[in-house]
C-alpha cells in the first residue's frame, strides 16, 4: 500500500508537452528523498482537460496540478509528498477557493460530465492489466461466458438502446443480431479505430487510456455472434495507442482472457491489429474491410451488408471504439441503467472532442440530451478573448455548422440530423465571429476532394466542382445563381454517391448555406468577407490622419504597393503613406509593422 498516488497524464496531448520528462523527474526526486516505498507514480491515459496539460493529480487529496513544469517537480515532491503541504500556487486555480481546495469533479469542466466510456481514462495505468481488473475489468466477459447465452447478450444490448458511436447511430444490438443469424464457418468482429476526422481524438483517448475495455468488449461481441476472430483497424498515426493496444493484447493472452478456452468455457477468441495508412475513406465500413484485406480501401455497394458478407466474404460486425467502450458496463450494470441516461431515442452518453475557439479544449463525456449551450459555456468555459459565438461544427467533414439560434438544442442523433448536422464520431469545433463560414465550407471540401477515393463519379467529380465554385466565391468571382447551382449539386451528390463519404460530403456546404446565407451573399454581391478571412476580398487602408509617415510599412511591403503621399496630417511632421490596392497582395505585413495602428483591413 502506498501513502500517496501521483497520476500523471500520458496521453498524446500531455506527452507532446513533456509529461514523460515530468514522470522521470518525479521518480528521481522521490528516490532522492527516500519516498519510493510510500509514493506511487502512475502514468495514466487522458484526463480530458488537454488545454491545461501537462496534468498531474495527487491522491488521496485529489490535488489537481495543471500546466506542470519540470522545474516545479522538486518543490511539489518536497512540500506536498514529503511534508504534506499542498503547493496551492501550482494547482488549477479553479480548484482553489479561499482556503479550501475543491475536488476535481466539482469543477465546471467535470461537474456536468458523466463518464462511462472514459471511466478508466486518467484513473488506471493502461499498461497494467491488473489495474483494469481491479476496476471490475473482464468481469463482464466472465459473466457473459458463464451465465448468459449469446441471445441473452444480444437482447441486453438491444434493450440498452446503444447506438453506434461512429456517426450514423445504427442500433448496435441489431447489428449483432443480424450477424448472429447468419451461419458460417468463420465470422469476424472488427473495430474501427481509424479516427480520421480532423480535430477528433475520442477513440485515441480510449485506446491510450483504457485499451483492455476494447478487448473485453470485442470478446463479448465474438461470443454473441459466434466469432472467434477479431481485428482492430487502427491509425498508424497513433503510435502510443498502437503500442498500448499491443501490450494489452499480450497481457490478455498471458492471463488466458484471449486465446483458446477462455474461462474454461470452450470459447475461443483472439484479436489482431491492422494498421491503417492514412485514408479517410477507410472509416466507411466496407472500405475498412477492403483495406484489412490488404487492398486499396475503396467501398463497395451494400447490400450485401457486412453482417452477411463482410471481411473475407464472411459475416462481420464492425463497431467503433467508443461503442465498444460502453459494452462491459451495460453487461455489468444492466440495460436499464444505460437506458436511464439520455433522450428518448438516444441513450447513454457521448464523448466529444472540444476544440477551436473555446477556453477548455479537451475531451468531454456528457449524457445525451445535454444542450450545446451547456457544453460551450459551462463545460467548455466559453469563448476566449470575449469574442462572440458564431457556430459549432459537429461531425467533421460529414457534418454541419450549428448557429447560435440552435444553441439550446438537446444533443442527440435525431436532433442534430434535423438541423442539418450530424453526431459524427464526436468532433465539436467552436467558431467565433472571426471565422468565415464560406471559408470553413471550403476547408472541408478541400479535405473531401483530397480524400475521395475516386471510385464513384458523383463524389469524385461532384466534390471537385463544388470546391471550384467555393473558390470562385471566396475570390470574389461568385454569382447569386451559383448559390442555387451549388445547392442542386449538393443534393445530387448526396443522393447518388456510393458510400457515406460522398453522401455526407456536401453537408458543410448545405448547412452553411442554410444558416449563413447572408455571408455567402456578402461574398458574391458586395464582394466582401464580413469576417475578414478571404484574402482576395480584403482591402488594406492607411488612415492618413493617424499616419506618422515613418515609412515602416512601405519598407515591409513585399509587393512595393505602399508609397508616400503629399498629405501631411495636422500635428504630424511627415507626409502620410497610402496603399495601392491593385498592387497589394494582402499579406498583412504592413498591419503588423505599423506601431501607430493606422492601418486597418476590411
Amino acid at each position: 500500500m502506498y501513502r500517496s498516488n501521483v497520476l500523471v497524464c500520458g496521453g498524446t496531448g500531455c506527452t507532446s508537452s513533456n509529461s514523460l520528462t515530468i514522470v522521470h523527474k518525479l521518480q528521481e526526486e522521490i528516490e532522492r528523498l527516500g519516498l519510493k516505498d510510500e509514493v506511487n507514480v502512475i502514468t495514466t491515459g487522458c484526463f480530458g482537460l488537454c488545454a491545461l496539460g501537462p496534468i498531474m493529480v495527487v491522491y488521496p487529496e485529489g490535488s489537481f496540478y495543471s500546466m506542470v513544469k519540470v522545474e516545479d517537480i522538486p518543490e511539489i515532491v518536497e512540500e506536498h509528498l514529503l511534508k504534506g503541504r499542498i503547493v496551492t500556487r501550482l494547482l488549477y486555480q479553479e480548484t482553489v477557493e479561499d482556503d479550501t481546495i475543491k475536488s476535481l469533479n466539482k469543477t465546471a469542466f467535470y461537474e456536468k460530465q458523466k463518464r462511462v466510456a472514459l471511466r478508466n481514462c486518467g484513473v488506471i495505468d493502461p499498461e497494467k492489466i491488473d489495474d483494469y481488473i481491479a476496476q471490475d475489468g473482464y468481469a463482464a466477459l466472465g459473466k457473459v461466458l458463464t451465465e448468459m447465452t449469446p441471445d441473452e447478450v444480444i437482447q441486453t444490448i438491444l434493450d440498452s438502446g446503444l447506438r453506434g458511436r461512429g456517426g450514423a447511430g445504427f442500433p448496435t444490438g441489431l447489428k449483432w443480431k443480424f450477424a448472429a443469424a447468419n451461419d458460417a464457418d468463420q465470422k469476424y468482429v472488427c473495430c474501427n479505430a481509424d479516427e480520421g476526422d480532423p480535430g477528433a481524438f475520442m477513440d485515441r483517448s480510449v485506446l491510450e487510456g483504457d485499451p483492455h475495455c476494447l478487448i473485453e468488449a470485442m470478446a463479448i461481441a465474438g461470443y454473441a455472434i459466434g466469432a472467434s476472430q477479431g481485428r482492430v483497424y487502427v491509425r498508424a498515426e497513433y503510435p502510443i495507442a498502437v503500442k498500448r493496444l499491443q501490450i494489452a493484447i499480450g497481457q490478455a493472452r498471458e492471463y488466458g482472457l484471449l486465446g483458446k478456452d477462455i474461462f474454461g468455457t470452450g470459447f475461443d477468441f483472439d484479436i489482431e491489429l491492422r494498421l491503417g495508412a492514412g485514408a479517410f475513406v477507410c472509416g466507411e465500413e466496407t472500405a475498412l474491410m477492403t483495406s484489412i484485406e490488404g487492398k486499396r480501401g475503396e467501398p463497395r455497394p451494400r447490400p450485401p451488408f457486412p453482417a452477411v458478407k463482410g471481411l473475407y466474404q464472411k459475416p462481420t460486425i464492425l463497431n467503433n471504439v467508443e461503442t465498444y467502450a460502453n459494452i462491459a458496463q451495460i453487461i455489468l450494470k444492466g440495460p436499464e441503467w444505460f437506458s436511464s441516461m439520455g433522450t428518448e431515442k438516444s441513450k447513454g452518453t457521448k464523448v466529444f472532442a472540444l476544440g477551436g475557439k473555446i477556453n477548455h479544449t479537451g475531451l468531454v463525456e456528457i449524457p445525451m440530451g445535454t444542450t450545446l449551450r451547456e457544453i460551450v459555456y459551462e463545460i467548455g468555459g466559453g469563448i476566449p478573448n470575449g469574442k462572440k459565438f458564431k457556430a459549432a461544427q459537429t461531425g467533421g467533414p460529414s457534418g454541419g455548422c450549428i448557429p447560435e439560434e440552435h444553441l439550446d438544442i438537446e444533443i442527440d442523433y435525431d436532433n442534430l440530423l434535423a438541423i442539418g448536422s450530424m453526431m459524427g464520431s464526436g468532433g465539436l469545433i467552436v467558431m467565433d465571429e472571426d471565422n468565415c463560414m464560406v471559408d470553413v465550407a471550403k476547408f472541408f471540401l478541400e479535405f473531401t476532394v483530397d480524400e475521395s477515393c475516386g471510385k464513384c463519379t458523383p463524389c469524385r467529380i461532384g466534390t471537385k466542382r463544388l470546391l471550384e465554385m467555393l473558390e470562385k466565391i471566396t475570390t470574389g468571382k461568385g454569382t447569386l445563381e451559383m448559390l442555387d447551382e451549388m445547392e442542386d449539386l449538393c443534393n445530387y451528390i448526396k443522393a447518388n454517391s456510393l458510400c457515406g463519404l460522398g453522401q455526407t460530403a456536401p453537408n458543410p456546404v448545405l448547412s452553411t448555406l442554410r444558416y449563413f446565407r447572408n455571408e455567402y451573399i456578402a461574398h458574391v454581391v458586395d464582394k466582401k468577407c464580413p469576417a475578414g478571412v478571404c484574402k482576395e476580398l480584403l482591402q488594406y487602408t492607411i488612415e492618413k490622419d493617424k499616419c506618422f509617415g515613418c515609412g515602416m510599412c512601405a519598407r515591409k511591403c513585399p509587393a512595393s504597393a505602399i508609397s508616400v503621399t503629399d498629405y501631411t496630417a495636422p500635428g504630424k511632421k511627415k507626409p502620410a503613406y497610402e496603399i495601392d490596392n491593385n498592387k497589394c497582395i494582402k499579406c498583412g505585413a504592413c498591419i503588423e509593422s505599423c506601431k501607430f495602428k493606422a492601418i486597418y483591413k476590411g
Partner: protein
Amino acid sequence: MQKKISTIPFSGTPEQEAKLQDAIARHKEDPGAVMPVLQEAQEIYGYLPIEVQTMVAEGLGVSLEEVYGVSTFYSQFALSPKGKYNISVCLGTACYVKGSGDILNKISEQLGIGAEECTPDGQFSLTACRCIGACGLAPVITVNDDVYGRLTVDDVPYIINKYKNA
C-alpha cells in the same frame, strides 16, 4: 493528391533486402499481407521505390499492379525519399512576387533536382510549399527547422554550401 515518383537510382543494400525478405516470409501466408509488408518495407528503405514494390509483388505472389495500386492509394506511403536536409521554398504569393520562383530555380539548378525530388546522395530534397506565414521576410526558405528570409538568388550557393560542409 498526385504522388511524385522518384527518379533517383535505387540504392538498397543486401542487409535491407534481407530484412524485406524476412518481412515477406513472415507475412506471406497471412491474408491481406500487402499493406503490412509495404509498411515494413517503408520502415526499412524510408520510401517505396518501384524496385522495392517489385520485390514485394514477387515475394507475395501478387501482381505489381496490385502493389502499386495500394502504395499510391494511401497517403502514408512515400514514393520519393526525403534527404537529410529538406529544403522548402515558400511559393506563397508574397514570396512569389519577391522572386521565390527564381530562388527555387536556382536551388534546383545547384542541386540538379526538381521540386519533390531528392539528390542521389540522399543529402538534399526539395519541396515547394504554400505560405509559411513569414511574408515580411519574403522570399523565405526553410532547411529542416532553420528559416532563411529576405533572400536573393546570390545567397543560394552560400546556404547550400553551409549544409554540404556540415
